[in-house]
């Protein structure tokens, strides 16, 4: 009864997934055709970009730019995730904390983070630390706000039930509140990772001595346009891999949620 349509749905999903890749292929083809037709030094073809990318992956680019960037990304993002979740839970759960911090947080998260890069430059000088600080500062907000909103909107019945079952303090937090708000935390983390990636580039352009952002801008300055494009492509791939990993973890961890999203219960 249930099995057959489920398999059909899975097949159809696979078909749609395939269509998605067809769409991507079409986009690449358009890029290639436009580049060939325009024949401009400023707009390399897709194939040229990919072959440059291939060369880069066997060059010093990997150790001097790619790996440092990934490490900065991971550290900065981890810091922002930790702070965002902890502070988000606190502000969401305690109304007093929320009220004291609302105005200050509203202002802070509205401040475009790249504006802080000059300050970070003065404080930490050129290099990795400054990039990590900027990433953490920027990516903390989506995580924090999502966590806080979800916690504040927590179903009262759920908390009541947990209390009746004798859950309090840390157990209430880890066994009920955290799982209950985890879908929104994940949504915040996914936004956070793309924010991290974005500010990583600007920070490295302005104040890095290595990293993908630094690579892209120095390639541009020495008129190696194709390498510049390849650098952007690398970032695309990093973003895509990170996002896919997130989806994977999310699907496993939040399997229970799919039924609810699917509206099975009535």
């Amino acid at each position, binding site marked *: *009864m249930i099995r057959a*349509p*489920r398999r*059909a*749905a899975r097949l159809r999903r696979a078909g*749609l997934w395939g*269509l*998605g*890749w067809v*769409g*991507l292929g*079409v986009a690449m083809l358009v890029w290639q055709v436009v580049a060939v037709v325009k024949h401009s030094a*400023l*707009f390399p073809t897709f194939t040229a970009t990919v072959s440059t990318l291939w060369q880069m992956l066997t060059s010093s680019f990997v150790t001097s730019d790619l790996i440092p960037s990934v490490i900065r990304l991971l550290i900065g993002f981890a810091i922002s995730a930790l702070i965002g979740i902890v502070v988000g839970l606190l502000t969401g759960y305690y109304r007093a904390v929320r*009220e*004291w911090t*609302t*105005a*200050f947080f*509203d*202002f802070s998260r*509205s*401040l*475009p*983070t*790249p*504006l802080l*890069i*000059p*300050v970070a430059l*003065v*404080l930490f000088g050129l290099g990795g630390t400054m990039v990590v600080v900027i990433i953490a500062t920027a990516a903390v907000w*989506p995580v924090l*706000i999502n966590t806080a*909103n979800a916690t*504040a*909107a927590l179903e009262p019945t759920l908390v009541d039930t947990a209390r009746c079952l004798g859950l309090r303090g840390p157990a209430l937090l880890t066994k009920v509140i955290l799982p209950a708000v985890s879908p929104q935390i994940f*949504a915040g983390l996914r936004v956070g990772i793309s924010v991290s*990636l*974005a500010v990583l*580039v*600007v920070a490295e352009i*302005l104040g890095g001595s290595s990293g*993908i*952002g630094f690579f*892209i*801008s120095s390639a*541009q*300055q020495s008129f190696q346009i194709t390498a*510049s494009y390849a650098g*952007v492509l690398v970032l*695309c791939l990093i*973003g*895509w891999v*990170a*996002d896919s990993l997130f989806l994977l973890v999310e699907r496993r961890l939040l399997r229970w949620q*799919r039924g609810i*999203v*699917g*509206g099975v219960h009535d």
Partner: protein
Amino acid sequence: MGGPDKAEKVRASSSREAPDLVAFESVETQVVSPAVMGNFRSRRNVRVRRRLRMAGGVVIAIGLWELVSVTQLVSSTALSSVSATAAAIGSNAGVLFSAVGQTLEAWAVGLAIATVAGVIMGALVGRSRIADALTETLVRMMRPLPSLALIPIAILVAGLGLKMTAGLVAFTSFWPIFINTRYGVAQVERLLLETATTLGLRGLSLIRSVVLPAAAPLIASGFQVAVGLALVVTVSVELVGGTGGIGSYVLAAQQGNAVANMYAGIVVGGFLGWVLNTGFAELFRRLLPWANQREGSE
């Protein structure tokens, strides 16, 4: 309820990209229950207390800033005092004002283009299963794409100037608006559509009077993400390209060791972001009163 129906719903929800649902609204979501009407004076007390606490938080933050700067915990070459920053804002008001104007210009032009393109394309793609699937992977690649990485290339291709900045802003802000519109249009309740059809609504009038209003809350939240994103892009281009505006102002101040001016620029930039964010949040709250029941529809 039959099995296929359930499978259909599950598929529909998991195949689509979840939208950027980071609510850019105030952290305190007000729940005003009309049923609970009571002692007016006491209700006002709670409201006053909240306002006081919010203001208190800001005062404490400013106090901490002053404390850190006075005690030289952070050296004065990196942090100016509150008073020095305020004075710098005062004495550079004219320059700051025109810098904000420049920033706003690029921001507004780019965002306007992104909104028109994002809503139209999102609505078209969202109404079609096939188009939706075709764009899925592309969107998943583009969404986390750091458009800021395109700044060096954009400078090269389009040169420095309003056209380049606005173009990059438009490109970046397009995605959250497009994604949310696509999702919002696709998830309009079938029941709502069927009801509308029985009422004789078809084609354009169906889209205008049912689909778009039903999707409006999601479109609005996509737009609000774009508002912040557009400002980040504008400022970043100004920082990297030195094209004027508040970003260039801050960088120039830093390079000239004018710490107070640097912080003046940051505070003004933050204030600009805050005004834009809260302004649009308030506007949408008034414009789309039915948006608040989104959560409760389950």
